[in-house]
């Protein structure tokens, strides 16, 4: 008998878990391009496309790194670009109570890209480099942390971010700078009590919190599908019960996402009260590398759809669009090379940062 410790975390690696779930593709609305994109400017649309592609290319690069055996585990956000990018674009970004706070789950690469994270920083995390700015090689891919953007550390335990977010929102309300906290998470995770806690603490009459509560509903929790696990018609109904402004949107549409997020962020800043958005999104590479990280063919690909629509309406040419993909493909490749050449965390460093200012926490040295 032999213990295996070489391969990364594997969960039933080869089973195919996807049920048929192809949603009908939206055909571009007739009328002017402006109408088709609800009046959003061409610049913004092209920027969103650029960021969505960048995020997608990056995630696919991470998967390739995993497949090449240069990382132990992949989890990430392909399928959430149309939803995640607008969040990063719309928030008031910076450090401290004058800015918005982010409490994101592990599919948040699109938001990070929109915030300005260079690809290499995601790859450093994926490849557990000492230079990984989020965790120093300590944690899984997509477990980002950037205090300079008020981005709380992404945690593996599902849903805990929902109650922590109430704390930053509370401090923001007290500071009075009209800043908000934003929390994201999955549909299955709403079964944890922390989701209910968030709704409760955010909506206390007279003590409401400036909190944008969101759920990315991809209809899956690993292998378990939404149907059969939920009694509520929409997850948003649970927020409505608390008299929270709530809606369900098509998170595969960046325009709808942008407009809904914009309106709700403004509402929160103005009223100091919470809002809730359930965004229907896709999960384009299955749950994680543990389930194979294989591309699925029966869910909407928001990046491709959006690109097609931009091309159809003449906002971008096919070639220009392709060039965006190529540009990031190259950036990704270069980033891998950079990361590969960087140092690994040292064994002794495990004792670092247990206490602030590296105060000793090793009892052998008390």
């Amino acid at each position, binding site marked *: 008998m032999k213990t295996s410790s070489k391969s990364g975390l594997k969960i039933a690696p080869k089973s195919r878990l996807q049920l048929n779930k192809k949603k009908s593709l939206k055909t571009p609305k007739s009328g002017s391009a402006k109408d088709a994109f609800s009046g959003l400017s061409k610049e913004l649309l092209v920027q969103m496309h650029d960021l969505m592609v960048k995020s997608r290319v990056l995630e696919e690069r991470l998967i390739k790194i995993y497949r090449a055996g240069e990382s132990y585990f992949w989890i990430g956000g392909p399928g959430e670009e149309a939803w995640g990018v607008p969040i990063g674009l719309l928030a008031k970004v910076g450090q401290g109570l004058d800015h918005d706070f982010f409490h994101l789950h592990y599919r948040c690469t699109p938001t990070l890209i929109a915030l300005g994270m260079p690809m290499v920083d995601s790859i450093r995390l994926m490849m557990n480099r000492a230079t990984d700015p*989020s965790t120093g090689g*300590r944690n899984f891919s997509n477990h980002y942390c950037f205090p300079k953007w008020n981005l709380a550390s992404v945690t593996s*335990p599902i849903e805990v971010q929902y109650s922590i*977010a109430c*704390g930053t929102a509370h401090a923001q309300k007290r500071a009075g700078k009209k800043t908000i906290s934003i929390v994201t998470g999955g549909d299955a995770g709403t079964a944890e009590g*922390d989701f209910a806690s968030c709704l409760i*603490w955010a909506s206390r009459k007279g003590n409401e919190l400036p909190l944008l509560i969101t759920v990315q509903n991809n209809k899956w929790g690993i292998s378990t599908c939404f149907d059969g696990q939920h009694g509520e018609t929409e997850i948003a109904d649970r927020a409505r019960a608390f008299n929270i402004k709530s809606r369900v949107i098509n998170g595969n549409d960046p325009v709808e996402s942008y407009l809904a997020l914009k309106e709700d962020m403004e509402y929160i800043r103005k009223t100091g009260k919470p809002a809730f958005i359930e965004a229907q999104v896709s999960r384009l590479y299955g749950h994680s590398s543990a389930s194979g990280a294989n591309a699925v063919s029966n869910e909407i690909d928001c990046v491709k759809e959006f690109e097609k629509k931009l091309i159809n309406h003449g906002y971008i040419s096919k070639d220009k669009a392709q060039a965006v993909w190529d540009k990031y493909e190259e950036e990704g490749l270069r980033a891998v090379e950079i990361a590969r050449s960087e140092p690994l965390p040292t064994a002794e460093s495990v004792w*670092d940062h*247990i206490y602030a200012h590296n105060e000793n926490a090793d*009892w052998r040295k008390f």
Partner: protein
Amino acid sequence: MSNMAQAIRMALHYGETHLGLKDVFGQDVGAPLGGVFTATQGLKTAWNTPLDERGIIGMAMGIAMTGDRCVAEIQFCDYIFNTIDLLKIAGNTLWCTNGQYNLPMVVMTPVGAGIRGSVYHSHSFDAWASRLSGWKVVMPSTPLDSYGLMLSAIEDPNPVLFMKPKALMRVRGEELIPGEPSEEKQLKAMIDAPIGDRSQWKPKWPKLEPHMIPIGQGKITRSGEQITVVSYGRMLLICNEVADELARENISVEVIDLRSIYPYDWQMIKESILKTGRILFVNEDTEVTNFGEHLAYRTTQEMFYHLLARPRVLAGKNLPGIGLHPYLEDNSVPQKSEIAAAVREIISEVP
């Protein structure tokens, strides 16, 4: 002299006026009650939360993430056990982020038996807490220490668990809090909420002075030569009593109030053992996988050749709970007579 509830209240008041403490919250922590042990009466930053321990800890973590200082209360440590995952996250956030997000938060919670509190108002938490890496963990035994440790806890950039021995909340100290009026009655009139309608009441705070007790520093409460007894919280006071009684028989017991469970004052323990050669660790948490066993194990490892007797741990029996009837409770957690008996036994052990 103030009791421990008043001392903590004064520390929190000092915190909100001098140390940037912005929130003191928990179940029944705000007006009108000011805490089930009155430790938060009259504080301007105290507020009542929903009945949701997980929400309370999450709120504290979020506040701490912004850099604001807060003290959150779990009404009884008996009800903290649904938050261990969050406590672990609070303790590992700095480490997981490679030093980026420290969480300067304090969680305070009443612990221990001694008030006939039955199964769910008698739990201890020190053994559990000693397993929460990334936390600092303290437990005072006197009002002045609770004042000093609370100030240090509020100032500390790390999460600090402040355990309040519930049976000591109304016990008065022998030392004045710096700034406290010397008359007990005067203090009461100033800072205790009145009986009946409190809606118009406001406390009159004494002019308090800072008094920081560094986390990690023990205190020798009785000097002795023949044996060292290490304890904290409620049990510490009983150990003091035992030492005083045995002193009358010319048995010389050194008592150390550890005060901090993590980081703990190993140098003080070590020096004392070098002197006495015999050691007893006393606490009231359950005995299997107990923090005292850690200290005893370490003693065996590092002091083996200085020991005149086996290191000993006296702790709560490994029972699922502490029964209500005194016959049950008293047979579940260490009693004065048992501590005295253990001391005698260890002293009479021939190396």
